[in-house]
């Protein structure tokens, strides 16, 4: 009896081992053809077009909200229908979660083939050997850059290596609900407005029970303010802050505090509950007269609100040529990808294909390809056209953007937000906040 039992158990073990074994076998079998065409393609790029018809699995990861997920999946469908041998596995999440998923994948050597990249993480991933240099692919034409300006491409460079392909140009702007402003008795400012002009709208809107805006993103607008003063947030070598005079911090946050204390901004306890989606935005819901952000976000804002807005440049844009164009986001190829050639083709499709861009419609920034931009013009809605016009205008009135944020900037950005909250909650004076921010930020950045 015991022997029989032993036999059964051993048999069960053997069977389960076989089960595991065959599972591995399957994996190996499916990954083998995926890697072989890449190998051959690398060796002879010219022959790849005809030879790489073996099935290819491509993992593409991005962040965004529901609207972006929806149209991105449509673009992927289009790509798959044009390239039947390619199967794309989408991996999408919200911004924060995207990066939380990516790092462990990097540690496991398992990054998705195509990764949507942000400027604040470019140094971390590119500088630490996780991303492939795209230069060979732009040189051999796999990624066609013939209609893309050098300025647009260089935003993805670290040193002379191109780690990320710009998907669209962005510029900072203020979105104003002109109708609401005029109904409240205010007059629409012109593009030469100042922060004081903005402050003066505060009491006008407050008398109607409206806000100026929910908030201004600290890690975006404080650096922009610094640019207007001819300074930068980060030192060129990334080992410290780029501005030396804390008075700049004090000036900016004294004004910010004045807005907050006067009730022109959304109270922090309510702000903490905001999802950060346009559906949840104070401007979009008709509670605030403006919202501040990047030009690509305007498209979703106006779609959600279902009413037209006006675009104004951010005050201070004309001081020291503070205004700049920035890649809204990039696509990168993971170093560990086994199908880099196919990944590059997908990126080329995204950047240059007109049908694809008729689905994207500038939601990831104004297309970098001049051909695509021209082709889209007739199809733009009036609201989309405003963004394209604004970015074109900004291009003429801007100077070069700051280099990609140094490693540690993610933590410094959070530190800035924390410090600002402590000021607004009156736990710190503005002066104390300025000093504390410098001390802590220097500590973080000095590790570089």
């Amino acid at each position: 009896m015991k022997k029989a039992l032993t036999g059964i158990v051993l048999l069960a073990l053997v069977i389960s081992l076989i089960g595991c074994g065959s599972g591995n076998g399957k994996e190996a079998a499916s990954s083998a053809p995926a890697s072989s065409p890449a190998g051959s393609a690398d060796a002879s790029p010219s022959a790849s077009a005809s030879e790489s018809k073996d099935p290819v699995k491509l993992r593409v990861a991005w962040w965004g909200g529901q609207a972006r997920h929806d149209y991105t999946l449509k673009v992927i469908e289009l790509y798959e229908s044009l390239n039947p041998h390619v199967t794309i596995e989408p991996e999408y999440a919200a911004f924060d979660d995207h990066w939380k998923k990516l790092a462990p994948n990097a540690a496991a050597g398992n990054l998705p083939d195509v990764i949507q990249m942000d400027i604040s993480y470019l140094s971390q991933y590119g500088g630490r050997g996780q991303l492939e240099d795209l230069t060979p692919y732009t040189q051999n034409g796999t990624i066609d850059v013939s209609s893309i300006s050098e300025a647009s491409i260089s935003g993805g460079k670290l040193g002379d290596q191109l780690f990320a392909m710009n998907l669209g140009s962005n510029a900072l702007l203020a979105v104003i609900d002109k109708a609401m402003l005029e109904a409240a008795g205010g007059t629409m400012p012109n593009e030469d407005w100042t922060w004081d002009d903005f402050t003066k709208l505060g009491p006008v809107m407050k008398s109607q029970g409206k806000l100026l805006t929910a908030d201004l993103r600290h890690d975006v607008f404080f650096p922009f303010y610094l640019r207007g003063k001819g300074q930068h947030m980060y030192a060129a070598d990334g080992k410290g802050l780029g501005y030396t005079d804390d008075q700049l911090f004090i000036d900016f946050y004294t004004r910010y505090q004045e807005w907050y204390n006067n009730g022109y901004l959304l109270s922090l306890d309510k702000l903490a509950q905001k999802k950060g989606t346009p559906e949840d935005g104070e401007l979009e819901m008709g509670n605030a007269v403006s919202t501040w952000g990047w030009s690509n976000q305007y498209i979703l804002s106006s779609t959600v609100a279902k009413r037209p807005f006006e675009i104004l440049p951010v005050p201070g844009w004309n001081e020291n040529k503070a205004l700049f164009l920035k890649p809204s986001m990039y696509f990168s190829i993971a170093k560990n990808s086994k199908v880099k050639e196919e990944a590059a083709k997908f990126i080329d499709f995204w950047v240059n294909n007109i049908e694809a861009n008729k689905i994207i419609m500038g939601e990831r920034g104004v297309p970098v390809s001049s051909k695509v931009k021209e082709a889209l013009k007739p199809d733009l809605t009036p609201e989309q056209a405003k963004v394209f016009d604004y970015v074109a205008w900004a291009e003429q009135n801007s100077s070069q953007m700051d280099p990609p944020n140094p490693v540690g900037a993610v933590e410094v950005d959070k530190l800035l937000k924390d410090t600002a909250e402590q000021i607004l909650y009156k736990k710190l004076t503005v002066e104390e906040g300025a000093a504390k921010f410098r001390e802590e930020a220097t500590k973080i950045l000095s590790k570089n």
Partner: protein
Amino acid sequence: MKLRENDHVVGYAFAAPFILGFLLFIVYPVFSSLYYSFTNYNLLEAPSWVGFDNYTKMFTDDEKYAKSISVTLNYVLASVPLRLAFALGVAMLLNKAIAGIGLYRSAYYLPSLIGGSVAVSILWSQVFGDKGLVNSALGLIGIESSTSWIGNPGTALWTLIALSVWQFGSSMLIFLAGLKNIPKDYYEAASVDGANKVRQFFKITLPLLSPIILFNLIMQTISAFMTFTPAYIISRGEGGPLDETLLYSLYLYKRAFTFYEMGYASAMAWVALIAIGLVTLLIFQSSRYWVHYESKGDR
């Protein structure tokens, strides 16, 4: 002899799935985290050895770390006693012979079944939000309030404590079982001697229940120290406002996955392990002064 060997084989074969899983998914990660705790590891590059740097930084040069400890201690000191008291109170109510008692017991256990989950935390942020249930209820009794209890630094942690107290079910069940084990004659004898209900509670119920209180206290303290999900969901992963809900495990998670400092986070995990072990030991040591066992033999 031969048979005995076979016995071992069968035993190991049956235990093999667990042992393999234990080695692979518990022992190996635990010891690699010990190694990582002495390194600087950002997940994107290979770890580099830094000795005790992570540990020294924690205690000398990290304000947020100190803040997270104070938040966690506040949370544990408030939520564990409240939860146990609440659980005991409800258990005593449910220890009565009334019609449909089984239904009541199930109903009171429900919050714990779904407890600790993401869905409940999301529900909680609605209940305590600026347009939530709590403010509506306050409005009904004439108190107008539009603050978000979750977004307010003074009340944020208390919403988490309230959530923890609300999930008293598992402790309650254990208390209930304990109460049922107390012989009825003790109470009868006490009431014959003229002891009122309060006196009976302190002289009979509490002492006889003390081993169970000890068990619940230890289990709940450990789980309170490790609370993560509600703080993460309700503060949207930030531990705000003003770091008032930055529980230890949430700060550890932020260090690991937001700032990519896996070495530092591993060191934090080891400090937490040792600290929780010490607290548990302390509770055990204290138990000889307040826990009463009916049969002295086993202690």
